[in-house]
């Protein structure tokens, strides 16, 4: 019995096993973190998922988006409109938002491919699209324009309405489900043939086309997945926050908040966004509480506005300067290099006649 399980597990790839482990471990988080700490954990999980979704485009497909707020906002507003205006469950909003995000992704992906916008031009196009949605949302009366929409408060807890008592661990579990689904989806996509085509197109579009890969198709798949998963995050965020307004949905800050964990953790790595999200949010909490209660000799800093964000900016500069592959990316790369060197050495020694080593 145990053997079978082991064999079954070994058939699952490393990432899937890690996802299962993380999922299991995370089930116990609410046991240890309550109240505001659980809130922090919830935010870590949410932004890990959002940034992972962003990573499909920016990391794996090489399409650096500086306007992911567009997808996020579409998801948030689809849910908000259906729930707050039409009284329809956020579960429906989730699906509608995800489809909307995917469709918007297809549009963006097609236009940028058609007009060959790369590098800086691609970055600026994504930014411009998010800004345009922001400006339109500000004046769009069906979604209450600049004033925004809020979640109608219910008296009872409900998964169907995605609403629970404040402080309920269910919010955490909701985000955890979102994260796990996102990770499984990304893992499946990137391990599939399609996923490898996406990476091939990123590495060299011409070479990939010469091997029969339709670069537009690969790109569109990546952008649609990224858009749909990010939009789903918008749904959960709205349910968690109870309120949405254009700056919270489409603002440039949202785009930056989505991309930073991926960049800090390591773009194009599976675990980078998770590591980055945990690191950024925990560091943010620490600097905030540091400024709130600095040690005695730094007490003049107490309550000085700007200090924590200045530290944050300096930290970002530092990480990009010294860990250009991101925290996880750099570690993973070092490990990879070391392993390759070992393989190399083993090969060299095996060629030197120590053949029995290989037979082990």
């Amino acid at each position, binding site marked *: 019995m145990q053997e079978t399980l082991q064999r079954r597990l070994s058939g699952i790839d490393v990432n899937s096993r890690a996802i299962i482990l993380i999922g299991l471990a995370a089930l116990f988080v609410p046991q240890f973190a309550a109240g505001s700490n659980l809130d922090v954990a919830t935010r870590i999980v949410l932004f890990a998922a959002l940034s992972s979704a962003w990573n499909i485009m920016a990391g794996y497909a090489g399409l650096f988006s500086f306007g992911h707020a567009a997808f996020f906002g579409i998801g948030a507003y689809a849910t908000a409109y259906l729930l707050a205006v039409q009284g329809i469950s956020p579960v429906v909003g989730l699906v509608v938002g995800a489809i909307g995000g995917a469709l918007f992704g297809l549009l963006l992906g097609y236009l940028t491919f058609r007009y060959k916008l790369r590098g800086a031009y691609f970055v600026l196009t994504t930014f411009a699209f998010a800004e345009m949605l922001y400006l339109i949302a500000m004046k769009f009366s069906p979604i209450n324009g600049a004033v925004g929409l809020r979640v109608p408060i219910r008296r009872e807890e409900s998964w169907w309405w995605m609403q629970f008592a404040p402080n309920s661990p269910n919010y955490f579990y909701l985000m955890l489900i979102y994260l796990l689904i996102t990770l499984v989806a990304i893992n499946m996509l990137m391990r599939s*043939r399609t996923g490898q085509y996406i990476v*091939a197109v990123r590495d*060299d579009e011409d070479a*990939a086309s*010469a091997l*029969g890969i339709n670069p537009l198709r690969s790109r569109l798949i990546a952008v649609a997945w990224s858009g749909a998963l990010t939009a789903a995050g918008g749904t959960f965020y709205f349910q968690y926050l109870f309120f949405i307004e254009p700056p919270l949905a489409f603002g440039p800050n949202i785009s930056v908040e989505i991309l930073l964990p991926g960049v800090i953790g390591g773009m*194009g790595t599976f675990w980078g966004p998770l590591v980055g999200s945990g690191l950024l949010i925990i560091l943010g909490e620490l600097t905030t509480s540091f400024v709130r209660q600095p040690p005695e000799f730094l007490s003049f800093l107490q309550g000085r506005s700007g200090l924590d964000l200045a530290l944050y900016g300096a930290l970002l500069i530092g990480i990009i300067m010294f860990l250009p592959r991101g925290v996880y990316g750099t570690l993973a790369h070092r490990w990879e290099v070391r392993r390759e060197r070992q393989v190399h050495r083993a090969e060299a020694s095996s060629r030197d006649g120590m053949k029995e080593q290989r037979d082990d």
Partner: protein
Amino acid sequence: MTEASPGSEPQAASNGPLLEITNVSKRFGGLLALSDVSFSVQQGTIHGLIGPNGAGKTTLFNVVAGTFAPTTGKVAYRGADITGTPSHRMASLGIGRTFQIMKPFGSMTVHENVRIATYGRTDSTEEASTEADAVIAMVGLERWRDRSAGELPTAGRKRLELARALGLAPNLLLLDEVLAGLVPAERKPLIDLLKEIRSTGVTMLLVEHVMQAVMALSDEIVVLHHGQMLASGSPRDVIDDPRVIEAYLGEEHRHAEG
């Protein structure tokens, strides 16, 4: 993404040439890069395309490979017009190509690089892996199988270019200066490899600077000069053609022979 293996396609016009280039011209802005080029490539042969720098070889190569469309003229493959077919469709027709500037997928291993190509031939990932290994063995990259493609030395990258194109099991192989940038000691095994590939029935169109290799390999040669066809025929005919010697070969030929 790619269709069934080229072997399964009906051999349309099987007694005609495999590749037929008819009156191809290409204009970049006001400048004429190719002017009225026509020739054909027979199944199972190696066709060399030579000419001095700036003769239009690469332009012609790119027109054939579908990188861009000619301004006028037509490219036919197995009797079917493929002018301006997007390059990713070429692969499914059984046309593979290499790049002059090598383009490995730097984030993947050698095996994964080749597997991207063999994926197109089968639905099973395992089969694709096996096929990839066979190709890797053929080009002699076994030792590098699990190394990152970005780490390969130049000669290895050339072989990887070739391996990926072979991974498509092509009918026609378009080779863009596969020998350039190699030291003579590295050329020899690669030339042998190309001969071996020909022996499996693959047709090749070879753009090359290295004369020695072209002479040794080609069944037919086309010489381009200033975007126009200067001469064509067997290596002997071409090398004896006084216009070719005058326009192009003179120095380089002596150099190569010497």
